[in-house]
């Protein structure tokens, strides 16, 4: 037999290893490294806190006593995990988006951040989990006792209590060290999670090793094992359908509601995707954990002396066969199972106790004094630490009180049934918008009360709390009120009876009261947020701008989140608002963000109350009331519509603004245009009037003067006519009223016509053409096109400033388009003017030279647009160069 001292040493070494691993993981996580800390594998392994000492040792005992039934404890969770798409995914998403810190926080937050509910769930959890912690202490103590040398000495059996106390103390130390190191914004504990994962591996390997040893070492292989099972007293041990179904349900409920499961499943979750892996990997873990339970039980029953505790077969079988190493491994497996459960459970419980009991108490005590005096952060941490100590102390006390009980499984199931009372409020809360706070309160109270009455109190045995008479005949002799036969439900298994009665009352109370009551605004908003979490992953009941000073809020936040993190949050928020420094504007958005961040540390209800205390008002604003004026579903839709509408409004406003700008611009243009027209009309009219008046009083004027003046009048009236023609032309073109006279024409003809028309003007202008290239047939309006050409040729004539002005007309037909370039050898048009030459009245030189109103190119552009082509200025050709492009519709080279 392995020396007890050696075992203690191994145990201490193992604990030291766990401390080291946790410490390293925490450090790596703090340094921002350690991506492997956040792998799906670690997540899955951490879920194994479900497998406690009860399942490590107790499952074999359970199988030895009741046959196959033990497996239901694993089947329920398996169903929940392979059905992760239903509930787990939603739970995790809600946990992430709402910064949920515990199961109590979830319930409290869902039902309008009600602290009463938080307190009740916390109490249920403490009452339900304490026996379970006692159970773990007991199993560790019992397993120590197996190795302890019989007889006197420092480790004598009589000293089991001090062993339990030492274990409890050590666990408290570990949990306080790694569970309350920091008031993490998200309540995640990398060190703890890694330690749990290591323990998960150890317990799995240990149980598998014992199983392999039993099947292949003792039984002699698989087929021999099957024969031994068939021959064992376990064979044919009947299944009780009620218990089978009831226990499967209970285990399924427990995996969702146990505080420690909620902690690892939701709070410690790093990434929703990990759930996808856990959906099969965790059932696989459970499957492996239970694979060898029956073989170990069968072999243990056959080989161990009668009266040996089947709960300890995992340890005693290897020991009995002299496999000390295997026994030590098995011991470590059991130790791991117990410690990991206690650690996570006490973290979860302490979070709940400090957030839902200590902090609200503190808040109500300091309400009258100066707001938030003292370091709340330290207070929260201290509250957690004391809570951890308190929880473990309670567990120890429970262990001392119930010292005699050897059937571990019984306590586990009672605990499961108690904590399962949260299930209706939880599932109803995330699936049913109509669930109300009062409904949840009613269901929880009824269910928990009945659980205590029908299961917990009777479990202490006749005479402990309830007298034997009460158990047998009911209070005051009313038999249908008997704790184990309520409403005459006799003949049921006490556990199933308690489960059916308490859950039925719970669900009935929850649903009935929910249907009858009306939720308050915060509740309804939260309901929509939780139930529709996948449609809507933001916002919450908002804060209206209040009298809060950013500085007060910062002071408070620093006390809770720590200075660095709080300042970072404030600075980020300020930056988001476009402000410098640490003090953002107190907008509802900011308050909501702050509240979320605080909720990660102290829970939703407390965070809401704290912000409320500073903002000066925890009531809901009119805006909120408006938001919930309708059914919540409609509210969500409405708000999304509103969002769409406001977007649309913004768009419309933008369009309006643009239209307005355009109108203004148009109006300016119109004024300029009118002013230009006025100028262009009045100028020739001035000459005409002046000279007509001169001619009217023309006594003694020389005939040649008279002739000259008449000619001026004539020229100016021609100019007027031309201007009016141009204007008319332009307006017709611009209004699209022009009717095109499409016909087949040859480009050469059109250019000929244009050159001829400008002939009188040409003077010194030489025109170079390429007759061959011009033999292009086009389907177009020949008159209009030649009008463009005339314009370009006369422009060249008017503006080409070369010594020997030349105009080259190049024609190129390619890819169904014709380009006609008019390039002169003058100095061209300066780059800055190139953009405006096609605008109306954009004369670049003085009018005497131009002789036109500056409408020519504008008309050309309009015409080309009508003809489906374009006219552009070609820079870099040596002189002024225009390119007229046309689509070559149904035309071919002649």
């Amino acid at each position: 037999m392995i020396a007890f001292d050696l075992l203690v040493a191994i145990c201490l070494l193992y604990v030291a290893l766990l401390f080291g691993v946790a410490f390293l993981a925490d450090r790596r996580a703090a340094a921002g490294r350690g991506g492997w800390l956040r792998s799906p594998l670690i997540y899955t392994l951490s879920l194994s806190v479900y497998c406690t000492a009860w399942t490590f040792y107790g499952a074999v005992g359970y199988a030895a006593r009741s046959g196959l039934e033990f497996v239901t404890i694993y089947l329920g969770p398996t169903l929940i995990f392979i059905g992760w798409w239903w509930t787990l995914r939603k739970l995790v998403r809600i946990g992430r988006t709402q910064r949920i810190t515990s199961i109590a926080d979830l319930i409290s937050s869902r039902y309008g951040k009600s602290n009463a509910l938080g307190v009740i769930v916390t109490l249920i959890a403490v009452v339900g989990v304490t026996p379970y912690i006692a159970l773990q202490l007991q199993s560790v103590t019992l397993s120590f006792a197996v190795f302890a040398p019989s007889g006197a000495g420092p480790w004598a059996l009589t000293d089991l209590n001090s062993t339990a106390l030492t274990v409890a103390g050590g666990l408290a130390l570990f949990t306080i060290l790694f569970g309350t190191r920091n008031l993490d914004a998200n309540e995640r504990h990398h060190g703890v999670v890694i330690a749990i994962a290591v323990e998960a591996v150890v317990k799995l390997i240990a149980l598998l090793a014992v199983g392999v040893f039993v099947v292949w070492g003792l039984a002699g292989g698989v087929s021999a094992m099957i024969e031994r099972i068939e021959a064992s007293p376990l064979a044919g041990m009947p299944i009780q359908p009620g218990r089978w179904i009831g226990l499967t349900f209970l285990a399924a409920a427990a995996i969702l509601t146990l505080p420690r499961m909620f902690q690892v499943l939701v709070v410690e979750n790093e990434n929703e995707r990990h759930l996808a892996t856990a959906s099969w990997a965790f059932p696989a873990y459970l499957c492996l954990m239970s694979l060898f339970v029956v073989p170990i039980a069968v072999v243990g029953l056959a080989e161990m002396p009668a009266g040996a505790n089947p709960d300890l077969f995992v340890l005693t079988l290897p020991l009995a066969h002299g496999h000390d190493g295997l026994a030590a491994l098995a011991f470590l497996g059991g130790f791991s199972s117990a410690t990991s459960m206690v650690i996570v459970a006490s973290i979860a419980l302490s979070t709940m106790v400090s957030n839902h009991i200590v902090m609200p108490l503190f808040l109500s005590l300091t309400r009258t004094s100066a707001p938030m005096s003292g370091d709340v952060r330290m207070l929260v941490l201290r509250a957690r630490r004391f809570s951890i100590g308190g929880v473990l102390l309670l567990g120890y006390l429970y262990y001392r009180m119930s010292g005699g009980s050897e059937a571990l499984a019984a306590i586990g199931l009672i605990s499961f049934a108690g904590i399962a009372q949260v299930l209706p409020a939880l599932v109803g809360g995330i699936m049913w918008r109509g669930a109300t706070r009062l409904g949840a309160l009613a269901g929880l109270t009824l269910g928990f009360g009945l659980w205590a009455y029908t299961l917990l109190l009777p479990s202490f045995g006749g005479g402990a709390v309830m007298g034997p008479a009460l158990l047998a005949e009911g209070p005051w002799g009313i038999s249908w009120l008997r704790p184990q036969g309520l409403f005459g439900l006799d003949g049921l298994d006490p556990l199933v009876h308690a489960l059916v009665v308490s859950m039925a009352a719970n669900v009935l109370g929850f649903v009935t009261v929910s249907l009858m009551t009306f939720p308050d605004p915060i509740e309804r908003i939260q309901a929509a947020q939780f139930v529709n979490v996948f449609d809507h992953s933001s916002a919450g009941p908002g804060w209206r701008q209040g009298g809060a000073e950013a500085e007060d809020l910062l002071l408070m936040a620093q006390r809770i989140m720590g200075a660095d993190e709080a300042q970072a949050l404030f600075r980020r928020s300020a930056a988001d608002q476009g402000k410098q420094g640490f003090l953002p504007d107190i907008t509802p958005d900011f308050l909501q963000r702050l509240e979320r961040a605080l909720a990660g540390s102290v829970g939703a209800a407390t965070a809401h109350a704290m912000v409320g205390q500073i903002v000066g008002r925890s009531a809901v604003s009119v805006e909120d009331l408006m938001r919930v004026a309708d059914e919540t579903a409609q509210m969500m839709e409405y708000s999304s519509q509103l969002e769409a509408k406001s977007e649309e409004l913004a768009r419309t406003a933008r369009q309006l603004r643009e239209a307005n700008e355009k109108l203004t611009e148009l109006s300016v243009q119109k004024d300029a245009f009118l002013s230009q027209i006025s100028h262009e009309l009045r100028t020739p009219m001035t000459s005409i009037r002046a000279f007509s008046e001169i001619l009217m009083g023309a006594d003694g004027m020389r005939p040649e003067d008279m002739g000259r003046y008449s000619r001026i009048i004539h020229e100016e009236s021609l100019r007027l006519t031309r201007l009016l023609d141009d204007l008319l032309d332009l307006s017709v073109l611009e209004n699209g009223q022009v009717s095109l006279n499409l016909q087949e024409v040859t480009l050469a003809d059109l250019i000929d016509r244009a050159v001829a028309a400008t002939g009188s003007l040409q003077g010194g202008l030489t025109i170079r053409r390429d007759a061959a290239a011009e033999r292009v047939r086009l389907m177009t309006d020949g008159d209009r096109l030649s009008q463009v050409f005339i314009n370009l040729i006369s422009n060249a004539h008017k503006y080409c400033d070369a010594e020997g002005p030349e105009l080259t007309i190049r024609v190129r037909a390619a890819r169904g388009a014709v380009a006609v370039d008019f390039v002169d050898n003058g100095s061209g048009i300066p780059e800055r003017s190139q953009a405006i030459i096609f605008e109306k009245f954009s004369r670049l030189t003085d009018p005497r030279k131009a002789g036109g109103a500056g409408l020519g190119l504008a008309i050309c552009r309009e015409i080309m647009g009508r003809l489906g082509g374009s006219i552009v200025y070609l820079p870099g050709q040596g002189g002024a160069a225009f390119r007229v492009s046309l689509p070559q519709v149904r035309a071919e080279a002649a």
Partner: protein
Amino acid sequence: MGRATLFLAREGYRRRRLADMARLLPLLGLALFLVPVLDAEDGLTAAMLIYLFAVWGGLIALSALVARLLCRSGAMDDAVRAPEDAP
């Protein structure tokens, strides 16, 4: 354009059917795990033990398959990560 929308529609359809599978899986598991109740009198037999573990293994394999397909189909793309992982 038309083809693209058709493709998207098919993608979404496939994703929804996968989600349906994920939802149906626990119901299938429940039915299979309730089989021992039908055979309650015989209770624990080696055959029953083998049946249970076979069903268990099968469900685990199916769940792994569905989870894999779901992740690959992009159904988990909107997954919310822990805040400190977020950019």
